[in-house]
């Protein structure tokens, strides 16, 4: 596998991290959804810059080294964890406004040149783990089709989950037999999502008809006052975001171009799919992933007055598919502007529709559960491609160790960490003539 970062990718990666650091410095946006709730106190001046830096570092460090780095090194494609978790921290850390974008740009430069150097080095080794990692995309694409089934099992009955499983499998088989032009997992995934939506709507209607008695419960003065107070916090936050729309549109513009180069994958799995050149599949995966994140992003945004660096994550599927970077820049900017404009309406809707928020939580959880299996299997397959049984033993052994050691590496990334370590070990063994490299397909 060869990696060539074009000047466009290099320039826009650096611009993106610089701009993102500026946004986090001004408490306008952060990438880490866990850091965002704290920004309310930060921009109100109740949290000092050094306290806020400590919070951001504590919540982000594990994901940079335990998720972003292994995915980038094993796929050769950039990801938002490795770009924007550090830019969150650097921007918040910077004592002066002008320093934030400089620190962000420096990080972007380290990344593009570091990744370039790392992949070039790997390509010259006797055992090439980047080529082996191409094993990843098949398990991800096929297993991902079953995430709606897992979400249905979490939210609804066992019976519905079994029905959904069988329907998804059936659609996959029909697709394989009669529709060779369509990726078998694509239609199955769509079928699963439709079932999930139908079940959620039925549930919502059922809740409506039974919950009427609860609504008529007398509301106390105190309760009304509390509601009013938080409503006014939310309204002020939404107004703060609207006032800063031009800044967010700038981020949308830069991201549109970078994502359009297909060198930045939005989801945990998308990097591997992009590395294989399957852009339409990547778009489908990241579109459904967005459904799991939108309510979280909207809620934390109106509760804190700060937005998500990558917006509602809808920019990924759109920018993967757009035909050129100029159009991607325009659409990216307009999309971010529109997202911020409708933010407070979406937040109100979510407050009223509990089953939609539940469904979204379950989608996020279900994607994780299925991807953990898929990425572990893909990693073991990569281990097998590199070093047969020995490769499987190293990757699987590291995964098992991580499980019992309190999971210092996020479960989803422990397979890829295993592959990288196996790659390094097998290369050392090959140089020592203790391991004969096998041909990697």
């Amino acid at each position: 596998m060869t990696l060539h970062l074009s000047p466009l990718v290099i320039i826009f990666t650096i611009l993106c991290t610089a701009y993102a650091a500026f946004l986090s410095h001004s408490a306008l946006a952060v990438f880490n959804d866990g850091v965002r709730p704290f920004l309310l106190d930060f921009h109100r001046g109740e949290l000092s810059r050094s306290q806020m830096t400590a919070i951001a570092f504590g919540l982000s460090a594990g994901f940079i080294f335990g998720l972003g780095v292994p995915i980038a090194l094993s796929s050769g494609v950039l990801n938002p964890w490795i770009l924007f978790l550090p830019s969150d921290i650097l921007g918040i850390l910077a004592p002066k406004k002008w320093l934030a974008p400089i620190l962000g740009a420096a990080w972007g430069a380290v990344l593009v040149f570091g990744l370039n150097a790392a992949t070039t080095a790997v390509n010259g080794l006797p055992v090439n783990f980047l080529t082996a990692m191409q094993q990843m995309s098949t398990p991800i694409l096929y297993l991902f089709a079953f995430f709606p089934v897992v979400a249905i099992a979490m939210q609804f009955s066992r019976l519905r989950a079994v029905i959904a499983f069988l329907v998804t499998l059936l659609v996959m088989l029909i697709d394989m037999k009669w529709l060779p032009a369509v990726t078998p997992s694509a239609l199955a995934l769509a079928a699963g999502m439709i079932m999930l939506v139908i079940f959620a709507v039925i549930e919502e209607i059922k809740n409506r008809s039974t919950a009427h008695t609860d609504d008529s419960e007398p509301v106390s003065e105190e309760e009304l006052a509390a509601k009013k107070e938080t409503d006014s916090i939310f309204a002020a936050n939404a107004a703060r975001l609207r006032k800063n729309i031009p800044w967010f549109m700038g981020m949308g513009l830069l991201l549109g171009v970078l994502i359009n180069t297909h060198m930045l994958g939005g989801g945990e799995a998308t990097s591997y799919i992009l590395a294989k050149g399957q852009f339409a599949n990547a778009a489908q995966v990241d579109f459904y992933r967005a459904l799991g994140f939108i309510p979280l992003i909207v809620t934390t945004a109106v509760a804190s007055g700060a937005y998500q660096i990558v917006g509602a994550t809808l920019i990924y599927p759109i920018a993967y598919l757009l035909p050129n970077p100029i159009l991607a820049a325009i659409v990216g900017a307009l999309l971010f502007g529109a997202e911020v404009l409708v933010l407070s309406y979406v937040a109100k809707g979510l407050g009223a529709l509990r089953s939609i928020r539940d469904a979204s939580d379950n989608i996020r959880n279900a994607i994780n559960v299925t991807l953990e299996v898929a990425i572990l299997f893909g990693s073991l397959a990569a281990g097998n491609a590199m070093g047969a049984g020995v490769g499987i033993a190293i990757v699987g052994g590291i995964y098992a160790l991580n499980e019992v050691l309190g999971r210092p590496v996020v479960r989803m990334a422990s397979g890829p960490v295993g592959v990288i370590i196996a790659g390094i070990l097998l290369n050392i063994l090959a140089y020592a003539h203790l391991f004969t490299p096998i041909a990697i397909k």
Partner: protein
Amino acid sequence: MATIYIGGVGKSDLKRLLEQRHDPNLKFVVSNDLEAGPILKRTTDTYYIGTCHTGAGGSLGAMLAFMGRQRTHTFGRQSRTTPEDVRKLLASNVRVFGLSVDQINAIVPVLVDAILAHQP
């Protein structure tokens, strides 16, 4: 008697874990941040446990806006805590807790024991 509201990505796992305790003294409600926030604000013997991948985003959500930072704590991706640590948090009036969904089994038993033992 303390009531624990649970929410976030891992609420079904959390619910199963709490049900397995078969403890008649444990009262818990499956909820979310937007519903539990106003309830916690106007009551005293109530607690919230939220879960997500960071331990703070989907876990705490709008809770900081409802309760303020001083009443909330996140364990993040931390894989252990001690009864003493939780007691200190409860003594300082922290009632909202966030933790990572992959650390539920490590943190929640200690946390819930301490909440049940705590007399406000």
